[in-house]
């Protein structure tokens, strides 16, 4: 039997630990993806993801079901991401340890994905990451939630606490900046929007 999120929450509150594990299994990937695209660093996104579930677990008693569980979880994750961004901006760079033999370490590494593949993938996404990094937090958040989590404008508005029209404006402004920046980095892409392609032809 498949339980809904809200049913799993109720069971978790009543002491069924496996129900909370099921919630983690369901939402771990989306939360990690949200964190990664918001803060841009794999390891830190993992930390944010774990911290999100820890906080959710601790605050589960306070969850009254006013919003969907996923929205509640997204809000926790976004708050943690914004905390991380604030903290990161005031942290200085440190010097590398001098006694690290980089070549020996690299030679000993056995990556599951080849370095060449990794480089190709990095090159492919670097332009997008750079362009996204230029956006103000609120525009980036709106784009990530809409583009990758398929939330409606209304859901995003409820989640970030702003009017519906503001969400659309942020998306428009953010996409316009991205368009300009991606054009600078070169390369073009054919539109994949089925609705646009179909309706404008």
């Amino acid at each position, binding site marked *: 039997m498949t339980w809904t999120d809200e049913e799993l929450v109720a069971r978790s509150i009543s002491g069924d630990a496996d129900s909370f594990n099921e919630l983690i299994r369901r939402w771990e990937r989306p939360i990690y993806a949200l964190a990664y695209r918001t803060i841009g660093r794999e390891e830190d*996104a993992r930390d944010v993801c774990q911290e999100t579930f820890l906080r959710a677990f601790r605050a589960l008693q306070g969850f009254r079901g006013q919003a969907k569980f996923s929205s509640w979880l997204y809000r926790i994750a976004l708050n943690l991401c914004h905390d991380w961004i604030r903290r990161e901006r005031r942290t200085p760079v440190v010097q590398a340890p001098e006694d690290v033999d980089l070549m020996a370490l690299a030679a000993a590494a056995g990556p599951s994905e080849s370095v060449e593949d990794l480089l190709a993938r990095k090159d492919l996404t670097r332009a997008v990451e750079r362009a996204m990094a230029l956006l103000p937090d609120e525009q980036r958040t709106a784009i990530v939630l809409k583009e990758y989590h398929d939330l409606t404008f209304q859901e995003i508005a409820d989640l970030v606490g702003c009017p519906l029209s503001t969400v659309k404006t942020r998306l*428009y402004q953010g996409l316009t900046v991205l368009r300009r920046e991606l054009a600078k980095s070169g390369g073009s892409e054919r539109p994949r929007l089925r609705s646009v392609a179909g309706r404008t032809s």
Partner: protein
Amino acid sequence: MRDTHCDYSGDRDEALVAYLYDDIDPAARALFDAHLTTCAACRDELSGLAGVRARLGRWLPPERQPAAASRSSPATSHQSPATRRTWWREIPAWAQAAAALLFLGVAAGIANFDARYDSSGLSVRTGWSKRAESAVPAPVRGPETNAPWRSDIAALEQRLRAEIGRSNNAGTTLASVATRPDRPAAALDAETLGRVRSLIGDSERRQQRELALRVAEIMRDVNAQRQADLVKIDRSLGLMQNNAGMEVLKQRELLNYVLRTSQRQR
């Protein structure tokens, strides 16, 4: 970007975004459809933004296996989903603290690893943050800022100690969930140790892969810089050869002049 000739009656930007994401009510869609048939500017912009969406669609987070699947030890992998427990709930708080501290220590060493080969030679830097040019100027801080992760480690340690304290008092906290009376203590210890090792192994593999990537990037940068240097050297050599040739020509002309003058005097 916006064409001033667009005469859409409503809020054009909002309508365009709603249409782009197909999150629009039917009446508004019909209105915008009709508008698109006559407005080239909106058609162009819609197409451009759809292209942006296509690029965004290729931005994937690095591969990540679910914690429940990737972090289970072989000892628990045979368990049914109903009885499987998430890794962090089964590991005692002290082990979580040890693994976290170790991970932070390793990560602090090579996080944000940055190596450059330029006119000033090869330089290597690491850190938690972006490079200085992309960040807000750092405030002047005391000597302890040379190792910013120390405060993170201390904070984490404090948190985990608090967690341990709570778990000792309350019977339903994370660590205590794992302690089941039907399992011998030795088995639990072995299992825990295995998981901590697995965690550390995962962490090391990730760090090594990241390092290999960085080294490959360095090699690429070094090659690019070498090519640029070679071109520069080639140009300099050409210039020198040219100068030398000019000098030889001058000497030859001078010699000819001297010879001509001496022949005339005879």
